[in-house]
């Protein structure tokens, strides 16, 4: 009986998580367009619903009813596989992410995470690495030069930015003496990691920008020079899969930044509920992502590589060494 209850609880949590993550891109696209508009002294969507609030719904209906086009020269199997490969890993990663300690519902303590892995960080980096395959397959299978160039760039970008990203986290792991995200947040109860690890935060954030393929590192889908990059040939719901994946990864990187460097659900000054603190911090970083997008130009390909290998990698290595020396 207890097993069934526990299992049911997990299923319920996963279902809730998937529902939230699938619906999250709707307000995020609206927000992104609104922020873009106002930063450029425009208004953004205004006509569908109040201040364009229903615009994402209209876009969703449009994408669902559009023709699902597969190019004649495409590798049909990989072409169909790629959006799923791009969409699934970001959702799987959220299994390992805690949103808080626990809440009591009807007298029962319910934990705000699906599973408390002791290697959560490794799991996240391992699974999120699979997402790149979706992008690479998508570009390759479409048999279009723009798509191939896009996935080529993604390939190089992911390889050069996962390494500093992984190294930047090591400092945090050393401080918390654990790879479990819950332990990492608990270790930040007094002082947030960003105070001890400003360089680590910087490297992680920049690498995260590249990981989420956002401006200034969105070379994989550079509209100006590649059409739309790896998803040039995609249309309809498969294109929507890529977009949802992109937004979920953006949220994921924000969540990781908050958990690893900004104290997770630990609040300061204001005694707000922990979950609200967490949501506020994540919202702030999502906003920063959008803010960056409409402020900075895109880096050139060689500059991107130079930043990854010549700046971020040495910085993260130095960060590890200095953290080790100070800790010992």
């Amino acid at each position, binding site marked *: 009986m207890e097993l069934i209850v526990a299992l049911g609880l997990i299923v319920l949590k996963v279902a809730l998580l998937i529902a939230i993550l699938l619906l999250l891109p709707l307000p995020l696209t609206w927000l992104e367009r609104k*922020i873009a508009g106002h930063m450029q*002294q425009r208004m953004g969507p205004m006509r569908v619903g109040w201040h364009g609030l229903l615009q994402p719904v209209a876009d969703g209906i449009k994408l669902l009813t559009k023709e699902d086009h597969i190019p004649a020269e495409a590798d049909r199997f990989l072409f169909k596989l790629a959006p799923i490969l791009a969409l699934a890993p970001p959702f799987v990663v959220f299994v390992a992410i805690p949103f808080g300690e626990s809440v009591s519902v009807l007298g029962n303590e319910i934990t705000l995470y699906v599973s408390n892995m002791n290697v959560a960080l490794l799991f996240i980096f391992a699974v999120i690495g699979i997402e790149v395959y979706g992008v690479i397959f998508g570009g390759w299978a479409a048999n279009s030069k723009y798509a191939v160039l896009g996935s080529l760039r993604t390939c190089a970008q992911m390889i050069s930015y996962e390494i500093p990203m992984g190294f930047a986290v090591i400092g945090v792991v050393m401080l918390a003496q654990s790879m479990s995200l819950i332990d990492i947040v608990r270790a930040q109860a007094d002082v947030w990691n960003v105070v001890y690890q400003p360089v680590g935060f910087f490297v992680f954030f920049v690498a995260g920008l590249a990981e989420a393929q956002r401006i200034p590192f969105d070379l994989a889908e550079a509209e100006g020079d590649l059409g739309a990059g790896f998803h040039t040939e995609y249309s309809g719901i498969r294109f929507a899969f890529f977009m949802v994946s992109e937004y979920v990864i953006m949220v994921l990187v924000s969540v990781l930044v908050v958990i690893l460097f900004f104290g997770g659900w630990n609040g300061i000054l204001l005694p707000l509920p922990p979950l609200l603190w967490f949501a506020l911090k994540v919202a702030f970083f999502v906003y920063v992502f959008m803010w960056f997008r409409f*402020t900075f130009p895109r880096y050139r390909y060689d500059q991107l590589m130079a930043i990854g290998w010549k700046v971020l990698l040495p910085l993260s290595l130095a960060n590890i060494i200095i953290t080790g020396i100070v800790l010992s």
Partner: protein
Amino acid sequence: MSRALERAGTWVGWAFFADLGSALALTFGYMFSRPVTMQYPDKEKWVPYSRYRGHHFLKRDEAGEIKCVACELCARICPCDCIEVVPYEDENGKRHPSKFEIDTARCLFCGLCEDACPADAIALGQQYEFSSFSSRDLVIGRDDLLAKPGKAATGGSVVAAQLNTEKIVLVETKEPRGYNWWRNIRRT
């Protein structure tokens, strides 16, 4: 010495991303500035300046009589031959047009008819919203031309849009008396 200091300052600025920071501050400031968008068909519309050449209109004199003397000079000078005038003589022996048709689908709004008119009877006014599903509807007759709005008095301002004819009720702007659109442009 001071140049070296300056150079050092630049490097320090670069190291702490002063340039990126100032860019972020700029876009953040713009986010809370007033949008310059004119919500044209929905809420507001632009009143053109008085020299704007929009839809033609025919004028009346003080007695309410049509000013046009049906001399057909406008039809002669019209480069695209879109004006058709048929004169008649009223009981006082004055010439007036019995038919005055402008095919606005052909018209190029050059304003030569206005220049040629000896009686100051025809002019190009402020109206620009007369699109139609049929080019037949774009042939405007004498009585319609008499009813068209004249030249804008001041112009260059934004007023409530009236295009939404289905609702009858006009959508209103916050400033129904019109405002100067240019003041919204932020100059830094």
